[in-house]
């Protein structure tokens, strides 16, 4: 292949003194000096959380106020750092949602272990565990960094539901079809 020699233009005298470049640089830095800050002053200003953000894992209620988790423990099994610990419990027979049969008696996520991978959310058949917007967890002890069930529901709140799976099942059951 032919080698093409590109002749470089020799520097002019002004360029060799570097002074015009330095003046140009000074202009640039002065522009930045007067430009508004890029920094967000964190505790007062919070970043806008984009949709689909994966923050702290939480448990959610459905719009009727039923806790969605049925303590199937899939998330506990899938969790790579073994951050989740579930103690399953039975639902009281006189509860309107007794046909769901199980609910977590205790649900703990150790936020010192959690790696925010979102596998728990992905594996959950009930859409009960969600990685939501909260991104900052602090605590003064290891025990404080373990989110228990009450805390998880506090953080999670209620999310809209499209399926109302268990209501449909109950309705179907009422129609004589066992699920």
């Amino acid at each position, binding site marked *: 292949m032919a080698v093409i020699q590109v002749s470089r233009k020799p520097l002019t005298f002004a360029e060799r003194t570097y002074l015009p470049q330095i003046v140009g640089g000074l202009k640039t*830095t002065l522009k*930045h000096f007067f430009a508004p*800050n*890029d920094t967000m002053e964190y505790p007062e200003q919070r970043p806008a959380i984009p949709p689909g953000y994966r923050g702290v894992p939480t448990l959610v209620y459905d719009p009727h106020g039923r806790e969605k988790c049925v303590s199937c423990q899939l998330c506990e099994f899938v969790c790579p750092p073994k951050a989740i610990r579930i103690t399953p419990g039975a639902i009281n027979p006189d509860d309107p949602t007794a046909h769901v049969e199980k609910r977590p008696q205790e649900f703990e996520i150790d936020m010192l272990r959690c790696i925010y991978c979102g596998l728990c959310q992905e594996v959950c058949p009930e859409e009960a565990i969600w990685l939501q917007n909260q991104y900052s967890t602090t605590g003064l002890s290891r025990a404080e960094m373990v989110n228990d069930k009450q805390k998880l529901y506090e953080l999670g709140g209620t999310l809209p539901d499209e399926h109302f799976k268990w209501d449909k099942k109950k309705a179907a059951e009422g129609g004589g079809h066992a699920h």
Partner: protein
Amino acid sequence: MFDFYFNFPLWFRLPLQGLAVILVLFPLAAACSMAERKISAWIQGRPGPNRTIAPILAWIPGMGVLQRLGIFQLAADGGKFTFKEDGVPGHVNKFYFILAPILAMIPALTTVAVVPFGAYLDSAGKLVPIMLANVDVGLLAVFAVSSLGVYSVILAGWASNSKYPFLGSVRASAQLISYELSMTLSVLPVFLLVNAPGGHGTLSLVDVVAMQSGGWHGFTAQSWHGLWGVCYLPLSAFIFLVALFAETNRQPFDMPESEADLVGGFHTEYGAFKWSLFFVAEYCHMIVGSGIFCLLFLGGWNLLPWLPLAKLAGLLGIAASPLLTGGLGIVIFLGKVAAFIFFFMWVRWTLPRFRYDQVMKIGWQRLLPLAIANLIFYLLAIALTQK
């Protein structure tokens, strides 16, 4: 009103004045460190230190603005440096290790003695400079004393007994020696102009300002004296400026520190109060250096070209009051110094550090011949015009 003060014996007055100047210069140097942090932050698009405030002061309305400006950070920094544990590493030469930061402060605070920072008109209408020691050697004393500062750097690097401080101090001494020459040569034309042939010679900075304090006399040769030095000695001013950056170890010439290749340079082994002494000494050098540049090339305490202080005081109607005129002169002078220090910091975030060989090359192969050519040019020009 001032008779009370002037009736004190001289031995009492002079230390008092010296102490007053040091008490202004020291906090000013500390304030420069704050300004440095804020200006660095603003250039980099950050707000900079803006949270510190003493809880007692937080109740006073309007303190928020000062808090945002980081004024109280100064006290926090100073307090930290004063009270934190000041360890001496086991492998150093203790005597020289402790001596070095003290030696850094001495020339830094001594040079200010011969720098005039204002002037007032006495009852006879004569301009009297405000300074500690109005000596004839003036600038020579500044050069002589301020170059002693390199001893502290060498001593610190040597006493630290480890390789990075040692390399830093060796570089520092080489750099200071290289640029001292061009710096001295660059100011010679100024004094050639000040000292008219046949007159009595002086190196006083007061006379340099006096040369730049002329009024407007139409388009005549006399109007030259209203101009500032930078207008008719631009190359001198430029060489002096570059050498000043090198002498004060500021970026792009901060060879002695160059934290990227030398950890921290000569003060790697230092901490707490001893380190802060080096730090303050560096800023004192910067302030005094800026002051001398303003006196030599920017008209000292004159507000604008062709508008000397005496005339300005006359226009404002305060010429009769030495206190007001003196205050005005000091404010104008300090304003110029502050602007110049801003320039120092502005350049810091514009130019990257030169490599060591580049520093030497610029110093010896570019600046020095330029300074000599500049001197010869003005020698000839002055010889031909002022016969």
